[in-house]
Each structure stands twice: as structure tokens, then as C-alpha cells.
């Protein structure tokens, strides 16, 4: 038991290390010049001496291995470094951005899980009917639609044509984040969350549908029906838990995909969350920020998977938490 816990912990640590090393290697192989990306439009007014000073201050002249060792050493003391593009400690940037993204991703995660499961249950119970066909087709359509495209479509319909929702941002233009009311925040959250939920519904729906079809064809459902169990009782007592396992595992495992999706959705809706910071960090060679994001994302995904195992075990006693 203890051995398996330790093994699992070792796996988590090694995965995080691999993610960080991989990201760093990719960043050092990138052709983008961080100083050039940092000064941007001011390039003309900045001399080569000043560039050299920036590079020296950021330690860009040191060999990559030395830079990585310095960064890793600091991480162990709890210092994730300074973001080059925001001029703030990485921890502060991460906390700010994560708070905005958390609201978005949690909403999308819960909505896609609940609606996906409910619709999958309906499609599975009515397998072969037009309800099932309509839901399945809809799910296939969404599963094959790119996130940014769905986002643009919603933006066009609800923000441009109907004018019901804002076109971007987390708060109204000209308002400081601290001053916006809850209602304004929710208003700005609507479309990005709807985009991510819509996309997230599809896999949960299709997997749940398949699970329900299999459960309905099982011996134990036939036996329950032969005892006089009616459809409602059947769903409540026999189908729900048995069909929940794939949805639960999928939903917890999809946290990683949710990050990817929010990256695109936040870009489309100019929503200042973790996804948007990731794009900026990557485009402008902000190595400390990107490594921080990679590390935190990996940890969140791995934690999500661990939770998935626990919940899976709670739903289905045959599933093992470890191993």
C-alpha cells in the first residue's frame, strides 16, 4: 500500500520534471529573441547597449543548462522567478490569471459534465430513436468543431448580431478589475464558458450514451426488469451508477483538454486568464512565466486524474484507487 503510494508520488514528480525540462528545451530552441519581443515597437529607440543590459539582467548570455539549474534551484526555495513581460513575480501573475480562469473553467467543467451526462443518459435510454440520433449527431458535430470557430460563431450571433453579450474582456472596458460588479463579471463570462461547455459536452455525451446502452443490455438489468423494476427505478437504481464511470473518468481526465480549450477561447474573447497569459508567454519568450504555467498546469492535471480515481472507486467499487 505505502509502496504504491510512493510509486505514484514518484511518477507525479518525474512527470512534472519531464514537462518542465521539455518546455525549457523547446523555449531555448525557439528562434524568437526575447529582448526583441520585449521591446517590441520601441526597438528603434533602444540601442544595442541597452539590449545588452536587458540580456545581461535576464541572464540570457549564460549557457542554457546554467540558467535552468539556477531556475530549478530557486523553485526549491519557492521562488518561481520574475515574469519578463509583466514585470511581476511569476507567482503573482499565476495567482491573478488562475483566479480569472478558474471561474471560467469551473463553470465550463461543471456544465459540460452535468449536461453531457444527462444528455448521454437520455440518448442511451432512447437508443435508436430520433432523440438519440439528434443528440448523437449534435455531439459528433461539436466534437469535430474547433473551439475557436465555435467561439467566433457564438461571438457573431450573441455579441455582434443580437448584442446581448460583450465582445471581450473579463470586465467592461474602462473598468478596473476590482470595480466590476458580480453581474458584470458573469455577463463577461457567459460566452467563453458557453463555448467551452458546448465543446466539452460532446465526449461526455457520447461515452455516457455508449455506457448506458451497454448497461441496458446487461444481465443485471434484465434481472432487475424481471423483478418488476419500471424504467424510472431502473435508471435510478441500476443505470446511473453503472453508466457514471466513463463520464467521471473522462471529465477528470479532460482537465488538460480544458486548459487547451481555454487557451483558444480566451484568445477569441480576449479574456485575461491563464490561457491568454500562456499565449503571451510563449509568443514573447517569457521563460520563467511559461515554465511556471507548465508546472502548475501539469500539477492540476495530475491532481485531477488522482481525484478521478478516487471518485471512480466511489462510483464503482471494482475500480482501484491506486495501481
Amino acid at each position, binding site marked *: 500500500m505505502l509502496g504504491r503510494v510512493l510509486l505514484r508520488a514518484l511518477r507525479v514528480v518525474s512527470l512534472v520534471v519531464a514537462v518542465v525540462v521539455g518546455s525549457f528545451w523547446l523555449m531555448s530552441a525557439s528562434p524568437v529573441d526575447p529582448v526583441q519581443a520585449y521591446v517590441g515597437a520601441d526597438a528603434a529607440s533602444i540601442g544595442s547597449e541597452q539590449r545588452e543590459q536587458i540580456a545581461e539582467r535576464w541572464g540570457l548570455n549564460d549557457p542554457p543548462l546554467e540558467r535552468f539549474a539556477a531556475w530549478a534551484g530557486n523553485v526549491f526555495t519557492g521562488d518561481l522567478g520574475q515574469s519578463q513581460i509583466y514585470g511581476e513575480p511569476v507567482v503573482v501573475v499565476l495567482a491573478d490569471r488562475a483566479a480569472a480562469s478558474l471561474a471560467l473553467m469551473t463553470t465550463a467543467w461543471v456544465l459540460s459534465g452535468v449536461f453531457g451526462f444527462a444528455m448521454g443518459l437520455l440518448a442511451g435510454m432512447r437508443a435508436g430513436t430520433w432523440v438519440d440520433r439528434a443528440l448523437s449527431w449534435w455531439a459528433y458535430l461539436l466534437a469535430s468543431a474547433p473551439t475557436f470557430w465555435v467561439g467566433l460563431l457564438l461571438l457573431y450571433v450573441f455579441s455582434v448580431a443580437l448584442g446581448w453579450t460583450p465582445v471581450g474582456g473579463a470586465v467592461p472596458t474602462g473598468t478596473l478589475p476590482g470595480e466590476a460588479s458580480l453581474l458584470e463579471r458573469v455577463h463577461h463570462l457567459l460566452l467563453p464558458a458557453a463555448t467551452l461547455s458546448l465543446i466539452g459536452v460532446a465526449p461526455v455525451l457520447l461515452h455516457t450514451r455508449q455506457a448506458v446502452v451497454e448497461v441496458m443490455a446487461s444481465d443485471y438489468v434484465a434481472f432487475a426488469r*424481471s423483478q*418488476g423494476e419500471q424504467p424510472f*427505478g431502473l435508471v435510478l437504481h441500476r443505470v446511473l451508477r453503472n453508466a457514471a464511470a466513463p463520464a467521471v473518468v473522462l471529465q477528470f481526465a479532460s482537465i488538460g483538454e480544458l486548459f487547451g480549450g481555454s487557451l483558444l477561447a480566451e484568445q477569441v474573447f480576449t479574456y485575461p486568464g491563464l490561457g491568454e497569459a500562456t499565449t503571451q508567454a510563449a509568443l514573447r519568450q517569457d521563460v520563467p512565466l511559461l515554465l511556471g504555467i507548465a508546472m502548475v498546469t501539469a500539477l492540476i492535471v495530475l491532481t485531477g486524474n488522482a481525484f478521478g480515481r478516487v471518485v471512480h472507486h466511489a462510483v464503482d467499487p471494482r475500480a482501484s484507487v491506486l495501481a
Partner: protein
Amino acid sequence: MSTAAVPVLEVADLRVSFVQYERGLRRRVIDAVLGMDLTVHPGEVVALVGASGAGKSLLGHAVLSLLPPNARCSGVVRHLGRELDVSARRELAGHEVVLLPQGVSALDPTTSVGGQVRRAARLADAPNARAAARGALVRRGLDETVDRRYPHQLSGGMARRVIGAIAGMGHPSLVIADEPTPGLHPTAVTEALAGLRRLADDGAGVVLITHELRGAIAVADRVVVAHRGRTVDEAPVADFAGTGGRLTHPYTRALWQALPGHGFTVPSVPVPDLEVS
């Protein structure tokens, strides 16, 4: 066996077909059962024997109204002389008529044994479901620790006793045992079949649906043979002897002679303390 009593089950000219939609909207009707007749008296075990795909399981499902939505079913089903339409069959399911599966796959893997037996007691309208469930398990020698277990934590014998407890909850007058023996250890087969015999001796009618003629002969009073959707022959167990000279129907005789050794003798069934009742 008194054949003068009112049969607990009478099936006459049962037909089952399935409607399928192929690519597009092309409709296809598959006739699975083309005319089956079966009569079971109280206290009798009738084996319905046939190869896979003969449609014998569908008879059981039709009687219990377990057919899928795309199935069409016609013919007469009578229980104690009363003709049953689909809704009446559904009402009797779990009370008067029960399905008796054998494998652990008949138990919900995600619900504890106690939970499943209590649910069955509630469905059978037991006044005190908790007590009824406990009582049914105690009578089968299963103590409280079994209540909290999940099906995957049961041995094969325990699972059969739990299934027996669930099926017997409504004090059924008709038990339909669908393929109770495949994949079982020989002693487990004997035990399962003996359990069916005990049910019949207690007064219920039993339909044993199986493709294993040998087991059927060991326990049944009569054997009804199904072939390609029809019941083609009915013979008393005594006729299955020697080289099958007393069997009149060629298919039945072929089934009998296909067993190892024409001079195959029917083993006497020891009746151990029963697990299924």
C-alpha cells in the same frame, strides 16, 4: 405429476419478430420465433432445449415482457388460466413469474448485496423490506457480513444463493431459468439443477431454458425441443434412453445421439442441501 391441474404457464403459437432499420430507412423484419407452444404445470420442470439461435430465450423474455422495444410479439400466454397481455405480464414479473439467472453477471456490480436484495423486497411489496431481505439471505445461510459485500467479492456459490434470494422474494408460481449452467463446474451444475428441482417440488412451475440436453434430462419431467424458431417436439424424459429408439422426431433423436456414447446413461441427481430455492 398431476396434469389435471390448471397449468401455471400456457404458451400457444408464440411468434416474435424484430423490426430493424438498415442504412437509410429501409425496413427489415427478422422473424425469430415462428410458433412455439409450451405448457407447464405446478410442480413440474419443463426443459426447453435447442441450439443457440433457436429462439428459446425469447420465449422466456416474451413471458416476462423483457423484449426490446423493436420486437413484435403475438400469440397467447396464459398464467393459471388467465390470458396475459403485455401490461399484465409486466405486473406479474417479480411477483408470480420470475427469471432465475445463475451467473454473477445478473447482479449489479456497483450496488451492495444488501441493497439489491432490499430493492427486490420492495419491488415484491414486502411490508418490511429490510427484514424480508435479511430473512431471505439467512434462510440461504448468508450472514450480515454479506450485505455489505459487492458482487465481485462473492464466490460463485454465494452469488447463486443471493440470486435465489432475489428471485424467490415474490414467492413465484412460475420460475424461468435461462441458461443456468454454461461455464459452471460439474458440481455447481448439479447444485443449480437440484435447486430448480426443489423449487418445483415446493409447488412452482419451472421452465429450464438450456442447450445442454444432458443436464435437462437429469432434472426435467418433460423436454420440449426448439429448432429454428419453432417447438418441434415434446417428449417425456423417460424416452431419452438407449440409442433413442423411443424418440419419434428426427431432430430430437439427432440431438440425443450427438451426446457422447449412444448408451449414455442419465446420472442420478444427488440432492444436496440446496442453494437455490
